[in-house]
């Protein structure tokens, strides 16, 4: 075949003819006769990538630049001279394999983030001491007080009553957290209850008003304690940074615009993880209610009232893929 010969000392090109022999020999002929002969054994053939030019690297530093990949490949096949990497090229050649590779990669990545990461985060959380949770929650209350919450207007007697219930719940829990109940005026967030990772549970006056009886309040308090016991805040943090790391690793060699694309599916997944955490907290509450012989429907009752008060339709079906909580109807079913 026709080729160009570069001796490696200057950039001068020499038009040559290359002949491939059946015994693995290579003959390079220029206009003045044979320039050199070589054997495949002491010549390095560059790997084929796509359909780019390839080179025969002779052992004295000279090269032959070839454009005809197929002829070269045919010869290499004939004398069994292909390298291991050539198999990769054969894979890259086939569109069906590329599509399959796409699905497999996507599947593995999705499975990894959807299942492996949360499982690992749960295991990792066990190894992390609860003092870390303490630090995570410390400043959150101050921030909430500054921007969202107001001092409580609940009568002291009522507070003491609810505190007694709370004490009952946490007395049976041995998670190493310092549990504390705080009352606040709900302000912008209305009827709500939150659990900070350090063990502080906040309940708003509006939620207390919304409840029809003590048992409903106890159910919500148990749910919040469930969040702390299962260390959901910590697991969320580990999960989201691990997910981000996996996406960054998979999409590694892209431009910075890709970080937005990587964020989109992870945002959806984070919402899903959040719903799973809520379900776990719900289960903790239901278990506690059953163990203490309190009818479980009280939890569902308050959830329905809560949804109505926040503008939902009341039938328990308001939902979106971005919801951090599962459908109320599902949560009540237990």
């Amino acid at each position, binding site marked *: 075949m026709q080729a160009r010969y570069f001796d*490696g000392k200057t950039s001068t090109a020499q038009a040559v003819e290359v002949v491939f022999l059946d015994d693995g020999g290579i003959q390079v002929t220029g206009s003045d006769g044979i320039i050199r002969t070589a054997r495949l054994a002491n010549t390095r053939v560059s*790997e084929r990538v796509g359909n780019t030019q390839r080179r025969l690297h002779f052992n004295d530093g000279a090269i032959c630049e070839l454009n005809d990949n197929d002829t070269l490949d045919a010869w290499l096949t004939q004398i069994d001279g292909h390298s291991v990497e050539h198999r990769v090229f054969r894979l890259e050649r086939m569109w069906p394999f590329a599509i399959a590779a796409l699905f497999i990669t996507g599947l593995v990545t999705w499975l990894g983030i959807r299942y492996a990461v949360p499982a690992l985060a749960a295991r990792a959380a066990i190894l992390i001491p609860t003092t870390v949770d303490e630090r995570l929650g410390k400043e959150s209350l101050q921030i909430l007080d500054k921007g969202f919450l107001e001092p409580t207007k609940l009568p002291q007697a009522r507070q003491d009553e609810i505190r007694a219930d709370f004490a009952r719940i946490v007395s049976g829990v041995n998670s190493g957290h310092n549990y504390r109940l705080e009352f606040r005026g709900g302000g912008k967030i209305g009827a709500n209850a939150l659990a900070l990772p350090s063990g502080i549970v906040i309940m708003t006056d509006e939620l207390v008003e919304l409840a029809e009886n003590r048992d409903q309040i106890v159910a919500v308090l148990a749910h919040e304690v469930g969040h702390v016991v299962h260390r959901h805040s910590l697991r969320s943090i580990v999960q989201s940074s691990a997910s981000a790391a996996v996406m960054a690793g998979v999409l590694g060699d892209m*431009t910075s*615009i890709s970080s937005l694309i990587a964020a989109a599916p992870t945002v959806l997944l984070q919402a899903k993880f959040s719903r799973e955490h809520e379900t776990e907290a719900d289960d903790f509450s239901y278990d506690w209610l059953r163990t203490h012989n309190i009818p479980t429907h009280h939890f569902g009752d308050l959830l329905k009232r809560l949804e109505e008060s926040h503008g939902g339709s009341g039938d328990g079906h308001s939902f979106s893929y971005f919801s951090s909580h599962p459908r109320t109807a599902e949560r009540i079913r237990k």
Partner: protein
Amino acid sequence: MESNIYGTGAATSSAANTSAPRNEYFSFTGTGGEYFRIWIVNLLLTIVTFGIYSAWAKVRRLRYFYGSTLLAGSSFEYHGEPLKILKGRLIAMALIIPYSIASNFSAILTIVFALLFLIALPFIVVTSRRFQTRMSSWRNIRFGFVGRYGQATWVYLGLAVLIPLTLGLIIPYMIFARQRFLLGQAKFGATQVGFNATPGRYYRIYLFALLTLIGTVVVAGIIVAAAFGGLGGIEDPTMLMRGDRAAAILLLAAVIVGGYLLAFSMIQAGLTNAAYGELSLAGHEIKCDVSAVRLAGIYFTNALFMLLTLGLFTPWAKVRLVRYQLENMLVRVSGDLDQFMAEQQQQISATGEEVGDLLDMDFGL
């Protein structure tokens, strides 16, 4: 004997070529489809081997892009060896991981590591650049780099220190100095590259980009004033989501995104043109004329398609960008391209490049 495309003579350096200056164009023969298959196989094998294959993936990727870049009938060649790259990456990881773990526990250790890194930076830049250039060749002549640590220290650390002292005005000069260092100290074989751009050119680039940004802010301000009666009219962020202001908000978003994109593209295009448009090599000149507007268009459509395809468009996006840049570059040849001589062989370790690679530092080319 049929006459081949390279001419029927012994050498292509016939006398007929030396009469008048002519243009030799760069061309890019790669396609998105072809690169997609390489990319996806790289990805799959890297995941399956827990990252070990990444060294081979890098080599294949660079061989593809180098090999698809043609000048005067010959493509460029990348000579990196996967095993050496793998070794370099493992060493680099051994250095980086203790740092990231330690930085979570001790502020002092973080500072110490950061200082060590700063001190090592000139070394990393020089070694990395040397390795990068020596792993590249055209017509069997390797590139090279002769920049020295002292120069690197000034250009990367010394000038950076001046940034706060000059309120940032030194930045265009610093960029100029860095590009002059990285490109002007490069060699093709035994021939040194000539870097002829001036600092003034860099100042103009940043000035126009800054003016564009200012213009964007002004227009945005006008829109906000018209729709909300001034910034004071926005009492809390939820106001930005009101349906009746949707048109104004969309317009505002479009103006801000468009303005930022344009300014960014002006800088990218300007820097590319300044770096590659005024290089000379033994009497030949390299010219580059990339348009900021076209570039902005490419960035925008790339981002849009990447979003719509959840990232699958990436290989096509990359090919588009490279093709546009290369097809606006050419070599103005006076004489012929056969006279370049090779330089002596030197052994360079892969560690330098891999440390730079892992830390995500891209020194151009």
